[in-house]
């Protein structure tokens, strides 16, 4: 089993700090690297993959640094976010070329096995330039898997995939994780991470905001205060009724309606229609106003 380790890693570009003092240890299984766009996920992945030096700290794979150490790629595979492929080659040629550059004893068999794993066998003899985004992505995954690496890093691997391809990719990552591989994939979509991995590393604004079992983090995310914008036939009467509800932690009233803070999303959304019905108030608008992922992440950072 290979261990990928980051020890107090920071990376800055001039005055801008992209990654700030992150430490993590990744062992076998699937880990999701979660964070909003611009949080520094790609920078972390690139440092892990030896494509960026850390300004401070150490990135090691089984004790060896990944930066300026090409031998690390015997154990490491990378699927970058940038959809860069040699479009003039067929998928088979592309994956076989990867196998040959890895100096595998039987590059043809390795290429066939990798393409079969990502279900690209049928289209393997067509030029990559003719593929859909999802097919290109799977071809790149096949090329990264051709040498059966212990560690596979994927940057936003589900981008551009249709639901079926997404399911297939999730299934593939699951299987690889179960076979003892160390898989790390980045995503800005919580549901993706939730479906694939048991453990997550959450990065917000270059810092590690949360780390561990996704259920625990999910609970933190769902029990945070939620803010709703409300409009009704009688806002003042509704405000009085709502403040008596246990799940409501605050109500503000102004000319545009009510702003309600609820400590429990589920209890509030169940209680609201009951209260409105009981008071004879007609609800005109109900909008969760802080549901953007960024607000969820910044809450986590504060938690």
């Amino acid at each position, binding site marked *: 089993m290979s261990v990928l380790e980051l020890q107090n890693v920071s990376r800055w570009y001039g005055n801008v700090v992209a990654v700030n003092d992150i430490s993590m240890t990744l062992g076998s299984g699937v880990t999701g690297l979660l964070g909003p766009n611009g*949080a*520094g996920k790609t920078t972390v992945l690139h440092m892990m993959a030896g494509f960026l030096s850390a300004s401070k700290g150490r990135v090691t794979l089984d004790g060896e640094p990944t930066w300026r150490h090409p031998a690390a790629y015997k154990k490491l595979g990378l699927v970058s976010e*940038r959809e*860069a492929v040699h479009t*003039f080659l067929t998928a088979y040629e592309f994956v076989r070329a990867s196998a040959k550059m890895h100096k595998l004893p039987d590059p043809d068999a390795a290429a066939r096995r990798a393409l079969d794993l990502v279900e690209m066998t049928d289209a393997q003899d067509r030029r990559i330039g003719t593929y859909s985004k999802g097919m290109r992505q799977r071809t790149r995954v096949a090329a990264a898997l051709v040498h059966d690496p212990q560690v596979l890093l994927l940057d936003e691997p589900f981008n551009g995939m249709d639901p079926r391809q997404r399911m297939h990719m999730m299934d593939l990552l699951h299987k690889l994780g179960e076979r003892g591989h160390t898989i790390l994939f980045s995503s800005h979509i919580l549901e993706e991470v939730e479906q694939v991995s048991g453990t997550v590393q959450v990065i917000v604004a270059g810092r590690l905001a949360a780390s561990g079992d996704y259920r625990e983090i999910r609970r933190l995310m769902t029990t945070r205060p939620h803010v709703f914008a409300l409009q009704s036939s009688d806002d003042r009467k509704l405000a009085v009724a709502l403040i008596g509800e246990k799940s409501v932690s605050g109500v503000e009233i102004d000319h545009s309606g009510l702003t309600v803070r609820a400590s429990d999303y589920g209890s509030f959304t169940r209680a609201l229609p009951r209260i409105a019905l009981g008071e004879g108030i007609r609800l005109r608008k109900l909008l969760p106003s802080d549901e953007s992922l960024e607000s969820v992440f910044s809450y986590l950072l504060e938690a």
Partner: protein
Amino acid sequence: MSTVAYITARGLFGRRRALLLLPLPLLLVGLAALCVAYDVNPQNWGPTVLVGLGLAVVLPVVTLIVGTGVLGSEVDDGTIVHILTKPMPRRDIILAKLGVAILVSAVTSAVPLFIAGWLADSPKLGLALAVGAAVGAVAYSAFFLLLSLLTRRPVLLGLVYILVWEGLLARFVSGTRVLSIEQYVIAIADRIAPTNLLTGQVGAPLAIIMTVIVTLGCTIFAIDRLRSFSVAGETS
């Protein structure tokens, strides 16, 4: 042929950029043939066509297109990552790409220079120009390959070197000739086939030594740069 060289060659000829290689050599041969057909004295057209066009433009520009294409295009479109994520010494990657660049640019520029030299004077001059072009292709390729790792605008910087340094400064400021690959090529060709069509401005031994130094220096530097190749995060 190594896999890296195979992919590089496929990439080079698979791009429209490869078509840019054709017009200049054709122009060189065409002009030389035209002058011969109209019986113009080689003394009148030889220096202009052979040196002014052949060695000052065709050889460096062809090599610039090829030299920056073998690595620069892959750096630009990100496909270089596929090659770099392999446990290969970076030296092997640079040498494979340099080999392709030298071979393609040497053939593309040496053949028309050989024909033009033969038309202007003799097969010996043609051969001298072809050898000079091949030697020049080696040094230029190493230099342009390095440029594509040092800057995001290797073609622009390469053109500045060809037009400003070699084209302008090296003609008027004698000291800069020591750092002009074009002058090395002229000196080597002039040594192989002395004619009054070519006038070497630097000595042949110096030209050979400088060619070796430029080639080795640029190649070693390029290998080191590739070892530290960084991919900036697109979302960071």
